[in-house]
Each structure stands twice: as structure tokens, then as C-alpha cells.
């Protein structure tokens, strides 16, 4: 496998500054935005959480999972099952349970698929993802093809999740916490080992690492974090259906991580925002020469995906970093 997607683990100081400013801007956004925008950005942050969970596998460890939506969806279903008919469930019990369920599923599937590699890994993660999809799709007891309603948003102490602003800030806090956690992990012994596995698994094994355990840990952790995103999604939309476990979702997620730039988690966040926004733009396209582009948005979407793959292998963040370092280089040139 040639590595045309160079992963950029290191973020330049200039980029870090830009990201910090963007974060402050994000935190201040609700002050001047309409309800619709706040909801849409909350949704993007949830997807960003989801994308970061995949980046741990895809960008850091080099494992492309095409069935990641299953762990996302499962947590949403757990929330739906735990929420009673007439009252809200406590977040402090339901969230850990939902994440635990996703982690358990990921552990089970991971134990099998982590034994494979490359294309085999892609195909088997996708097949197991579809297995979960069909389990929920075909069984009326699990909601069937229509899915389930989450009747009440969970209760979360200080945060009143029924309030749009509270939900926004709760999601933002989750996003920052998970980002901080994953960045720490990247430089921990486990994170280093995972990156080693991406670069050369045989060598890591030769050096004495049990790569199976490391990969399985990453897979399980990633499943649990996808569960966090799925839980929040279920809480925000009040609804969960099998489509959220399907392979189109999984592929969109891969797309987000690629679009942003892999292996550093900041790229995954940027990619999720950018992808979601682009999708929104495509669905609003005008009628050109009697041809309704907005109605046939999938055509534009398909072309867009192909274009990103062909021309943007390092993602937006990689491009941005290159652009910035070019600026730095020019300024630094006279001293050299």
C-alpha cells in the first residue's frame, strides 16, 4: 500500500493559533446566531466527535473501518430503549451504558476483524456493520425499518438539554474533552505504538509489541467514542433509525476524516464541519438550464468525492498547513 494520504500528526504553532481562535469563535457563535444555525452547528460538533473516533483507527492506526456507523447507531438505540415513555432518563447512567454497549460490540467485532488487514479489514468491518444494520432493520422488536423515538432528552445536572444553548455548550465541552484526551493519547505509549503499527506492523511485532492487543484496544476505544457521538445524536434529534448504522454513513465518515486531514484529530473536526456544510450546499443547488441540480445532488456529491480523492490527498488541514508554512518560509528566508 502506498501512502498517498500522508498523515500529519504534528500541528505547526501557526495552525494551533488559528485553531484556538476558531474554537473561541465557535464558543461565541450562539451569541449572534439564529436557532437554526445553533442546531446545525451542534449537529456538526456531534459529527466531529464521531469523525475523531474514526480518525483514531483510520489516521493513527491505519485501519480503515467501513462499518463504524454501527457503534454510533447502537448507542443511540440504547438511549431510545432506556428512555421511559413519560419521563427523561438520567444522563449519568444512560450515557455510560450506551458507550459501554458500543464498546462491547466493538470489542466483539474487533476481536475478529483485527486479525485481518488491508482490504480484508475493510470488507469484514463493512460486512459486520451491515449485520448490525439488518438486525435492527428486520426486527420489529428493535424498531424495524422505521426506527425509534427518544421521547425525552436525558437529564444532565447543570445542563438543561432541552435548552438549545445548553445542548450546544454541552456538546462543545464533550468535543473539547475528547479532543484533549485523544491528543494526549497520541503521545502516550499506546498512541506511539498505534502509530508504529500504521507505519510498519511487522517491525512492531518484531520489536516485541503485541499488535493484536493494541489494535483491539484502539478499535474498542474508537467504538466507545463513536457511541458518545451516537448518543448525543439520538438526544438531539429525538429519533434513531437503522440508516444511521448503514454503510453510507460509514463511508461519509471516512470522507470527513479524509477531507479534513488524517491522524491529528483537528483535521477530523474540520472535515466534519466542511463535509456537512458542503452537503447542505449541494442540496440547495439551483436549477441550471432546466436541470435541477439540487434534486440530483447525489450527482454533484459523487463528483465532489471523486475530486477530493484525486486532488486533495492531504485534506484541508494539510493544504492549510502547507499554505501557512510557505508564508513562514518566506518570512524566515533572510535569516537563513
Amino acid at each position, binding site marked *: 500500500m*502506498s501512502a498517498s*494520504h500522508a498523515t500529519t500528526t504534528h500541528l505547526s504553532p501557526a495552525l494551533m493559533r488559528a485553531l484556538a481562535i476558531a474554537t473561541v469563535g465557535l464558543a461565541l457563535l450562539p451569541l449572534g446566531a439564529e436557532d437554526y444555525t445553533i442546531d446545525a452547528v451542534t449537529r456538526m460538533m456531534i459529527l466531529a466527535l464521531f469523525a475523531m473516533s474514526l480518525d483514531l483507527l483510520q489516521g493513527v492506526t491505519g485501519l*480503515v473501518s467501513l462499518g463504524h456507523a454501527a457503534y454510533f447507531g447502537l448507542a443511540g438505540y440504547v438511549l431510545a430503549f432506556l428512555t421511559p415513555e413519560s419521563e427523561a432518563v438520567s444522563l449519568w447512567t444512560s450515557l455510560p451504558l450506551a458507550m459501554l454497549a458500543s464498546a462491547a460490540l466493538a470489542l466483539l467485532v474487533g476481536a*475478529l476483524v483485527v486479525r485481518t488487514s488491508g482490504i480484508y479489514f475493510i*470488507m469484514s468491518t463493512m460486512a459486520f456493520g451491515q449485520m448490525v444494520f439488518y438486525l435492527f432493520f428486520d426486527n420489529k422488536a428493535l424498531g424495524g425499518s422505521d426506527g425509534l423515538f427518544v421521547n425525552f432528552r436525558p437529564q444532565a445536572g447543570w445542563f438543561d438539554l432541552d435548552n438549545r444553548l445548553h445542548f450546544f455548550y454541552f456538546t462543545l465541552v464533550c468535543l473539547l474533552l475528547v479532543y484533549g484526551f485523544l491528543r494526549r493519547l497520541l503521545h502516550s505509549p499506546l498512541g506511539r505504538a498505534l502509530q508504529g503499527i500504521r507505519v510498519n506492523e511487522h517491525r512492531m511485532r518484531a520489536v516485541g509489541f503485541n499488535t493484536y492487543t493494541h489494535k483491539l484496544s484502539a478499535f474498542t476505544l474508537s467504538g466507545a467514542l463513536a457511541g458518545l457521538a451516537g448518543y448525543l445524536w439520538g438526544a438531539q434529534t429525538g429519533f434513531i433509525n437503522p440508516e444511521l448504522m448503514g454503510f453510507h454513513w460509514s463511508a461519509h465518515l471516512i470522507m470527513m476524516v479524509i477531507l479534513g486531514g488524517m491522524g491529528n484529530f483537528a483535521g477530523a473536526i474540520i472535515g466534519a464541519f466542511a463535509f456537512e456544510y458542503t452537503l447542505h450546499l449541494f442540496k440547495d443547488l439551483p436549477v441550471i438550464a432546466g436541470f435541477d441540480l439540487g434534486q440530483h445532488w447525489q*450527482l454533484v456529491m459523487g463528483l465532489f468525492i471523486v475530486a477530493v480523492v484525486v486532488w486533495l490527498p492531504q485534506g484541508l488541514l494539510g493544504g492549510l498547513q502547507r499554505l501557512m508554512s510557505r508564508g513562514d518560509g518566506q518570512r524566515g528566508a533572510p535569516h537563513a
Partner: protein
Amino acid sequence: MGLAEFLIQALNSFQYGLLLFMLAAGLTLIFGIMGVVNLAHGSFYMLGAYLAYGFTTLTDNLGMALVLGAGVGFAFGWLLERGLFRFFYTRDHLDQVLLTFGLIYLFEELRAIVWGNDVHGVPIPAWLKGSVPLTDTLSYPYYRLFVGAVCLALAVGLWALIHRTRLGMHIRAGAFNRTMAQALGIDIERLYAIVFAMGVALAAVAGMVAAPLSSVYPNMGGSVLIMCFVVVVIGGIGSIRGAFIAALLVGTVDTFGKVLLPQLASMLVYVLMALVLLWRPQGLFKN
């Protein structure tokens, strides 16, 4: 389950398995020889089904439609390989996954533009209507036998092509060692185009013969693609023989599962895959 019913289910399993093989063979050949993972393979199946619909409404003759459709499939595959896929052989699997995922969107939307989003039926030709009586109440339709026969003939043809012809020898050489095959004067570029086009044509024919049984509807390639992945994972990537045996196995488990354990039927195939992965992570027949 009586003997007659058992026979019907056994025939159904065999026919479904052979149909899956037609798709999985193309998928596994394209992967084994060019190293490309193709998520859009299900779209070629859909394309075939819609071609069957289009050509039967034009010519009113399924036999003619099959020949025309196979030709269109082959030409389409050739163009796609020359125009797009050949630039992706050296890219990593992630790129290939995304590229072909993008293609699914493209093909679905083109299908919507050309044929719309309605469900269509494709009539069974007059000379294949009717069925073989087995008992007083049970019988087996001729058309299903015809589907099985077409697939079996193509499977045998594919085997003969790969093991008994010069082209087949080149294909095997290309799969074994690309550089060496090229050094020996094999035109590998042309070989790739042929293999790819053949894979597309096989998938299209599978879609065409299945069309009268399943009818023709949007996104019909999706579920069949997953089944093909299961077949390829069980059989071992790049192995035609593995794909054949795995396809029959999956066909049997799925068909009998639906009769004997209807609640768990959709899961059984994946359980089978899990067991194979536990036992042999590389599939049953890894080259």
C-alpha cells in the same frame, strides 16, 4: 420438510449461490489481479437489471437483451477502466474505497435521470413460463432453472477461460507477478482492461437474469454488494475457486436459514463469516 420442498430449497440455494458467484468472481478477479477494491460493483448489477428492463421493452426478447446487455456491460467496463480505474492501481485502498463510493452516487443518480425512481417488472419470456410439477401442490418454475443454467454455463466458461486458454494463462501470470509478466511481453494494460470489462459484464448479466425474479428498483446494488463482500471474505480474496465454494455456501445458509430460522435468517450469513474469520482469517482459499 418433505423431500419435494427440500428439493425446491436446494435448487433455490444453488441458483442464488451461482448468482452471487457471478458477482463475486468479478470482484475477486479485479482485486486479485489489479489490487482494486470496488464498492461500485453492486452498481454494475443494478445497471444490468435496468438494461434488461430497457432492452426487453425495446426488443421484447430477453435472449437478445442478454446479449446486448453483456456487450454494453463489457464496453462500459472497458471505458471505465481506461478512463478512471487505471489511475488508481497504485493508490492506497482508502482512495479506492472513496473513489468507488463516489461512483455509487454517480451511477445511482444517472440511473434516476435515465430511468426514474419507479419499480419496474421485467416479464419472463413466453417459452420459459410454466413450471416442472414435483408433487400435487408443489412445482418448480422453468425460469429459475434457466437462471441456474445460465450462471452455471458462465461459471464453467470462466473456469475454462482462465485454465484452458492463452488469455487465461496471461491473467494467471498477471495475478502472480505483474512485473515478470510484463517483462515476458504480456500487454498488461490490455489485460487489465479485459479483466475489468469481464467483471463488469458478469455482474451486468447477473443483474439481467435476476431482473425478472427480483424486479428492478433503485439502490438494488447495495444489499447484493454486501453479500458479495461476505462471499469474498469467506472464500479468500483473489481466489475464484474460493468465491465459487463460498457463494454456494452463502446461498445455502441464506436460503435454508429463511425457511428454518426466519427470525435469525439475515444474521446467519454473518455468523458463518465470523466463524470462518475465527478459523482462517485469510479466508478458505487464500492464494
